[in-house]
Structures are given as structure tokens and as C-alpha cells.
């Protein structure tokens, strides 16, 4: 087990290293002049040259990368070109919000998708299965922004029950104050994933129900209910839970569209605004933060999965 963990840790570090280089190199390709961006268009060429010299904008790429990554590791993310403010507190704040949104979405996704998948799997070919399958297909096929627009149209404009604005005010997320604002973005993210996970659960359930040991259990005369709850579920849910852990990637770094759509102050929208305005240090810091988090969460997921299913370790 220790060797397994160490190997995973090594892979993780390597992944982060490669991706950090990738992010840095790509974002340095962005055609923009940092000194001009910081000092503004009224600045004199001398002032810009002096700033470039001071900030090291004119140094060779490897040196700039080294400079950036060593500061990043120490938690110094630099200063935003656009906002002129330190990036680290902003990223920390946005990250908290993003995790909160992701957690809210998971809170919907896990029970709903597993339940739907199990129900569909147990009723293979019958009407509940059909209905759930069609629903899953729609959920898989509707892009997140389409889902969001549909939900906004229905709940914000027609029924007027939920806000289409999820901007937060105040220091921390306060459920009483912001609970309503979280519903639509969390529901959008959830609906996008529910179909996929329900499908996986359904297939898994069908395969488990057809497996020899379940058939044996049924033949032994155990009540169907006991068989399902005691034996089938445990095995059938391994796969979908594994799949859910792979989606954490999307829930952390991929909610950009949803955050933008609802004006939710998460990491994704911070990244998107930075990207739209060539704010390089912000692009780099927010992307790298997302990656660190994703890689870490994948490590945890791997460990959990291997604990659930020891065969993985051997492969």
C-alpha cells in the first residue's frame, strides 16, 4: 500500500510540474505587453522599460518560469495586471466559493443519480427504465449553458421563484442569505452530470444483478429486497462512485460557464475574466490552483477507490 501511495504521489507531482510548464508557456504566448497593461497607455517608454526591468518581464522564459513557480509554491501568486491587487487572497476566496458550489452540486448529484440509476437498473426494459434513460440522454446531451438558460427561463422569468443572479456579498457564504442564490447554479451543474452517472449506475446494477452470486442468493430464497440492499447495492455502487470522483475535475475547474452565467464569484469566473482580458498572472494562478486541487482530489479518489477495490493496486 505504501509503495502504491508513493507511486501515486510521484505521478501527482510530475503531473503538476508538466501542467505548470504547459500553463506558463501557453499563457506567455498571449500577445500582450505587461508593462503597458500595468502602467497604462499614457506611460512613457522609459517608465515601461524600467518596470519591465524591475519585474523581469524581459528575462528569458525559463527564468521567468522558475521565478513564477517558486513564488507560487510559497503562496505568492503575484499581482493582477487588471486589478492591481494581490492575487492570492482573491484566489483563496473564489476557491472557497467554487468548492461550496461543487459541494452543493454533489449534494444533489449523488443521491439523485444513484437512486435513478438503481431504479432503472432494477426495472430494465420497463417503463421506469425507459423514462429514466430518455431523461439521462437529455441530461448528457444538454450543454451546461443550455441547461442554465432553460432553468433561468423557467424558474427566474416564468415562475419568478429563484434569482438568476448568484453574486455574493459579504465575507463568507452565509446559507441563510445566499442559499437561494446557490440553487440554480448548483442544479444546473447537477443536471449536467446526473444523466451520465445514472447511466453508469444502471449498467452497473444490471451487471451485478446478473452476476452468479446474486443469482445464488436469490436461489437460496433470500427476499429480493434483502438481496438488493445487502448484496447488490454495495457492489453496484463502486463503479458510479468511482465515476463521480473523476467528475470532481469538472466540478472544480469546469464550472466556468455556469459561474459566468449566474455571475457567481468562483474560481472559474475569475479565470474566465482573466482570460478575456489577458491578465496573465491571474490566468496562471487560477489555472494552477485548480490543477493542484484536481490532482490532489484525484489522488484521494484513487486511494479511496483502491481501498474499496483492492484489485486496482495490483494492476
Amino acid at each position, binding site marked *: 500500500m505504501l509503495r502504491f501511495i508513493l507511486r501515486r504521489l510521484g505521478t501527482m507531482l510530475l503531473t503538476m510540474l508538466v501542467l505548470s510548464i504547459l500553463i506558463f508557456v501557453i499563457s506567455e504566448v498571449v500577445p500582450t*505587453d505587461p508593462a503597458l*497593461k500595468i502602467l497604462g497607455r499614457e506611460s*512613457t517608454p522609459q517608465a515601461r522599460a524600467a518596470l519591465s526591468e524591475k519585474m523581469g518581464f524581459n528575462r528569458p522564459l525559463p527564468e521567468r518560469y522558475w521565478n513564477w513557480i517558486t513564488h507560487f509554491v510559497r503562496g505568492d501568486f503575484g499581482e493582477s495586471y487588471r*486589478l*492591481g491587487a494581490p492575487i492570492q487572497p482573491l484566489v483563496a476566496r473564489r476557491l472557497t466559493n467554487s468548492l461550496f458550489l461543487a459541494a452543493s452540486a454533489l449534494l444533489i448529484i449523488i443521491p439523485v443519480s444513484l437512486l435513478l440509476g438503481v431504479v432503472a437498473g432494477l426495472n430494465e426494459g420497463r417503463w421506469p427504465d425507459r423514462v429514466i434513460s430518455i431523461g439521462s440522454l437529455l441530461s448528457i446531451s444538454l450543454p451546461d449553458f443550455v441547461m442554465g438558460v432553460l432553468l433561468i427561463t423557467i424558474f427566474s422569468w416564468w415562475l419568478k421563484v429563484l434569482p438568476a*443572479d448568484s453574486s455574493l*456579498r459579504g465575507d463568507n457564504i452565509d446559507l441563510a442569505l445566499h442559499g437561494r442564490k446557490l440553487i440554480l447554479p448548483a442544479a444546473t451543474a447537477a443536471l449536467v452530470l446526473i444523466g451520465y452517472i445514472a447511466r453508469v449506475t444502471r449498467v452497473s446494477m444490471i451487471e451485478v444483478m446478473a452476476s452468479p452470486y446474486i443469482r445464488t442468493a436469490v436461489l437460496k430464497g433470500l427476499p429480493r429486497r434483502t438481496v438488493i440492499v445487502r448484496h447488490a447495492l454495495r457492489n453496484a455502487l463502486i463503479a458510479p462512485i468511482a465515476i463521480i470522483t473523476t467528475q470532481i475535475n469538472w466540478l472544480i475547474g469546469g464550472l466556468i460557464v455556469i459561474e459566468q452565467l449566474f455571475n457567481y464569484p468562483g474560481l472559474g469566473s*475569475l479565470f474566465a475574466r482573466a482570460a478575456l482580458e489577458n491578465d496573465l498572472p491571474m490566468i496562471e494562478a487560477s489555472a494552477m490552483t485548480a490543477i493542484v486541487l484536481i490532482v490532489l482530489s484525484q489522488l484521494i479518489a484513487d486511494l479511496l477507490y483502491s481501498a474499496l477495490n483492492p484489485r486496482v493496486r495490483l494492476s
Partner: protein
Amino acid sequence: MKLFGPKAIKANEERVREAHFQYTQNRISRREFLRFASTVGASAMAISLLPPRERLLARPARLAQDMAPVRGGTIYNSLGIDTRRFDDPARLDMVFVSNYVRQICDYLVVLDPDLNLQPSLATSWMPSEDGKTWTVTLREGVKFNHGKDFNADDVVFTFERLLNPDNSSGWAGAANYVTGVEKVDDYTVNFFTNRVVGDFIYTLFLYHAAILPSDWPGDFFTNPWGTGPFTIEEHVPDEYIRFKRREDYWQMGADGKSLPYLDTVEFVSYPDEAARFSAMQEGSLHMGPASITLRDQYLTLPNHDFQTVQTGNLHIGIMKFNEEPWTNPNVVEALKLSVDRKAYADTLYLGFAIEADDHPIAPGMYPLAPANQTPRQQDYEKARALLAEAGYPDGLDLTVDYIDPGSDGGFADGFAQFLVGQLEPAGFRLTLAPNPDFWTTWLDDWGPNHFGVSNWAQKNTASEMLNLAYYSKGVWNESHWSNPEFDRLLEAFDSELDQEKRRGQLEQLTNLISDQASVLIPGFRQDAAAIAKNVHYRLHPQAYVWMGDTWVTP
């Protein structure tokens, strides 16, 4: 300095009397007369020259509120675009961003929503006899929010910073005739100019010129020091900034106590109009900018009014005068002829705009501005003929540079897309190239077959606008247009104090731009905002937002 003896005062009185005479002859309007008088620091005298009945009307609008303001409360306001760096007021380059600074700092003078010049930290001002030195008297008893007393040192400090090229301030360019500033005594300063500029006093209200204390150590984010009505309570860049009232602000409200009326103001970032609208519908946003094209939708809001104000703000099509194909005046004229100005006003602003004839001085928005002439009529046939004559019988392919809609809320983008359809039939085939760094390359040469689109806020004076963007040496002369006759005329206009002559000169200037300059200006838009019905606020035509005298009924 002997310049401000009785002789200078006399000269000034002469100027105002002359203007008053022109007003009695109906050659300039009352408003233009009053504005001129305030420019040379003689408002009181001007009002005394008016018949008693008119004196009342000449009072500043903000005192004329008939309802008694209520104190207290919080207002959530959105400035539309998200926050941008304002770590140094000297480096501001957008009106929107200056609105953050405006709550914390004061200016020497202000233009009220009626575009009347009002004293602020300066109480009076007067030009010398030769018009090249301006003496400004400062208000006493004003305190900065960090405790320091306001005096002449702070003014000298502020303007020396602005004039120092190391600070990269746009003010130095916009007021390029200002050569220096000097302390006379604790509450008097002199400004020196190298030529006579009658409208000098307005440059003190350019948004860079927020007065900072002489002990300001730099970085406005950590040291937001000013004499203004609010201080920053909390600032989360890109999300919101919360201001809280100061107890010892110098300016008094209508109830005789210190402004501001409000306890708290929060500017919330809503770059996306759909979310902004939803927040208003939810009742969590009192006010924010609104697109006029969505007017009918805003009218469905039960608790908000849709307020509009005519501005001199304009969209401009930039043709680099020194680059192909714009070196040929026929091509420039062909492009101007291809745009239907009524369609512009109707489509982009549902008619809430004045059609323009390719010059930037909006009628009614600047003193002495020429009345609206009939703009060019769209004439595709003539445009095609001109193009053919210029050697482009099959039309022209152009790349259009402008600021990315993500950065300016789509102001430039809508206009650019509108032009694609308008210019197509004449043979101009446009490829749009929005760019988030447009403002850093905007003044450069773009290379052949480029066209640009940008957006100008109304300036304080016609002179300021023309000096910035049309004077051949203007610091923001984006089209690179240069015309010696225009330059000469503009210098004469600036130094002329006779209002009637100035009117004629301004008309000549605008005609020159309209006929020859390589810019397309199809109209002057109205600005709109949705404002909660219980909020007492008036939109400023220059997009300035000042919450100091705003109040809200519970």
C-alpha cells in the same frame, strides 16, 4: 505675483460684461453666459447682472430639491463593468473606474448634472490679465479622511505628480499647456499655462485630478486617502466595494448637516446585464446602467424607474489618416456616406440619440456648440462611385480593431457589428477583430486596411475634446488627422474670450472635422439606468457617479 491686482479683476469684469451684452443681444444663451462666467470665476457677478426673475433659475440644481432628504440607509449600485485597477488616480483612463475614486476624493471644481461648473475644494478662481496665470483660492477647514488638514501643499503635490512624466498620467497630455503649479499661501495656488486657454478651469475636473494629500505614500488600494464623502470599508476586487460615510465631510446637505445622507454605498460588479437585471428584479440592486434597447424589459420592473439622459458620448469610426486607404479623402468620404445615421440612432438606441454629422461636439451639450446640422444622408451609389474613383471598384476588405466586448460591456462591439451590415452594400467588407488590449495599441499605426471603432465619453469642454483628439499634436489623436488650418483655428479658439467670436470659431472647427477629418461619428447617445423608485439620484451626462448627495426613502 502682481498679476492679480485690481487690473486683472477689472479685465475679468470686462469679459463678463461683454458676454452679458452678447447674451442680452441673444447672441449667446443664458446658460452659455453663465457657464462662461463660471469659467473665469465670476459666477456671482454674472448672476447679479441677470434680472431678478432669472437669478433663481441660475442657482445650482442640487439646491433646488423640493423634498427634504432622508438620512441613513444603504444603496447597492452597479457600475456595469467590473472593477479595474485604480491604485493610482493619476493613471485612471476610464470614466467608469474614476467613479470609485470619486467617492473618496474631491476635485477642485465639479460639473453638476446640469453641466454647470461648481466650486468644490476651490472656492474661486480668476485668470490674470494676460490669461496665462490662474489663481485658485482653496477652501478652508477641510480634512482628509486620514486626519490631515487640506491646504495648498496638497494641491501642489497632486498637480506636480500629474505633470511628472514618471507617473504616466493622462492629465499631462490632456492639459499639455499647463506648465506648472505654485503655492502662493496656504489657501491660494497659481497655475501657469504657456498659452491662453479660456477653459482652463475645467481641466481641474479631469478625472485624474483627484486631490491627494501631500503625505500620500502611494498605492491608493492600501492608502485611499482623500477629502471625499466616503471611505472604503471593504474592497473585494471584481466583486464589490463597500463605502461607508464620513462623519466630518465638509460639504453640507440640504438639511444643514454634513453630507453624505447615506450610511453605506456598495458598488457591486455585474459585468453581465442579464444577471444585473435579475438582481434588480429580486430587489437586491438599487441601480445600475441599462441598455436602451432593453427599455421595454426594464419597464416591467415594478420598483425601478428607467432614467435616461442625453449625453455627448459618441461612437467613433477611426480611419488612420496617414495609412492606406484613408490617405485618399474619397475613401473616407465614401465610408461616411455609407452610414444611415437614423438607422444608427434607431437600432442601437431606439431613437434615444441625436444624429451627428461626423464631428464630436454634441449640440446642447457644450456651450457654444453649433446647432445640429442635417447629417450626411446615406448614399451607397455615391459611395461606390467614390470608391471606384479611388481605385477600389470591387470594394475593400478592412480589419476592424476595437476593444473586446468582455472589457467594455459590448459598447464598441454593437457599433462594429452594426457597421458590418451598413458598410457592406457600399463595398466595405469588414472583418471584426476585437482585442482586450485595444487601449494599449489604439493610438499606434495599425498598418494598411485597418479600421477602428471606439467609444468617447463627453468631455468637460469642446476645447478639451478638440485638443485631445483632433489637434494634430493631440495626445489622443487616434485618427492621426492633421490639418494646419484646424490647428491654427483651435489655438485661436482657445485664447479667445469673446463668446460670440468663439461660437463662430467653433462652428468652423466642427465643419472642418465634419468635412475632412478621417473619423465617422454617426450620433450622440443617451445613457440610461434603472434606478429604484425610492432612490433620489440624477444621472450625470458624463457618466460620473457621485453618491455624496444621493438619498433613499425607506
